[in-house]
């Protein structure tokens, strides 16, 4: 099973054969509330680490989703564009946002592991 890592912007990242799948964490979807709109990057877009490349909006507010690492977008999840509420129901599984071919696969190890993210959540 592939390992999941996390960012301080509340994205989760799962690496599989050089391609990282990115979504938002349970904490993030809970803080946002009912998601009503998602905007995703197009396949082929090159993104820098930390670049705002997707948008998730709840009834209350809009939030950016940042690319956790540098790379090229290979796929975006049309299912959450059609049904934004999926982000609340399946934040860490079916409601992934985009897949990224990493520019530098070794950078993945620099992200927080689950224990690190839990510790980070405890500080905020």
């Amino acid at each position, binding site marked *: 099973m592939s390992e999941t890592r996390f960012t301080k912007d509340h994205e989760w990242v799962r690496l599989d054969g050089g391609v990282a799948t990115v979504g938002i964490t349970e904490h993030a979807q809970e803080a946002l*509330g*009912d998601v*009503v*709109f998602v*905007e995703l990057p197009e396949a082929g877009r090159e993104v820098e680490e930390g670049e705002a490349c997707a*948008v998730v*909006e*709840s*009834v*209350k*507010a*809009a939030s950016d989703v940042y690319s956790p690492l540098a790379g090229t977008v290979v796929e975006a999840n049309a299912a959450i564009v059609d049904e934004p509420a999926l982000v609340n129901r399946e934040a860490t599984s079916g409601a992934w946002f985009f897949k990224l071919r990493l520019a530098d696969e070794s950078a993945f190890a620099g992200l927080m592991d689950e224990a690190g993210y839990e510790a980070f959540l405890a500080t905020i």
Partner: protein
Amino acid sequence: MSEATLNTTPLDALNRELGGKMVPFAGYSMPVQFPAGVLSEHLHTRAKAGLFDVSHMGQASLHGAGAAAALEALVPGDMIGLKPGRQRYTLLMTPEGTIMDDLMVANLGNDRLFIVVNASRKHVDLPHIAAHLPAGVTLERHEDRALLALQGPAAVAVLARFAPAVAALPFMGVTPATILGAECLVSRSGYTGEDGVEISIPGDRATDIARALLAEPEVMPIGLGARDSLRLEAGLCLYGNDIDETTNPVEAALTWVIQKRRKIDWSFVGADKVRAMLDNGAPRLRVGIQPEGRAPARGHTEIVDANGARIGEITSGGFGPSCNAPVAMGYVDRAHAADGTAVFLMVRGKPLPARVAPMPFVPHTYVR
């Protein structure tokens, strides 16, 4: 403002017990949502009944012969003609003919007016009113009272189980009512576009009464998040977003608040400026905006024409759960204010197509 310095309402402990997510709002710690979430709370209010703690709002009474005449000097509404047992929406005006606040005024009879002003403006409004009262008229603040709103198609039937007389209350009617032994004041009004009531309650009885209402099967607690999406769908202004001290009531499309007699006497503060805009036409107008796509456009979004020229700004915008679509309101130059006019909203640097749309987005269901 830190959590420690925020004011709390008499329902604070209950709001927390119910799982309210507390946020700072107008100097108060208030629930933005409960565990059901904004979407469910919004839809529940339109389907059944939602209970809102709006105790942060400013409640006060004007007492004494001449109270209505004194208030008329400050607002464009007909206060002298407001009958006992009736309530009216009006505006406190600046000398520049702009809006100091919007408020509800009820005539309780016997030379007593009851007013409800915005939480964010009560520190401005109440001293302003007090400073303009003649001898014999006094302003009494009711800081010890709570205010609950019970809104939705089942709201009046629910409250009538406790106070049967409210079933007969007309829209914008006001009556004293005894609820679980507490002396309350009930008005048939609200801020959702639905039928419903607002209930002024002695602060020390507010929690009992809220618990009793919440025990009724139709009633769910509702936070400020759904309050905002409900009022936006209903096309109702939020002071500080859609109207403020830069807004003339004519451009805010609130000319209807100036009753006939006041358009003859023009005797309120700022009347000359309001009259001039009515005569010359407003340079910009508050309108509904319906985005054509799914992306919500929030407050401060720039509105442009087909050539990219700026023609206005969104003042309130978001997702309308009952519309199942984004909805917004804002100001556009007069030439672009007709219903159906194509406009573009600059969202994250991209022009998104939208149209000027009639409001409300969801029909009002007030009992007339």
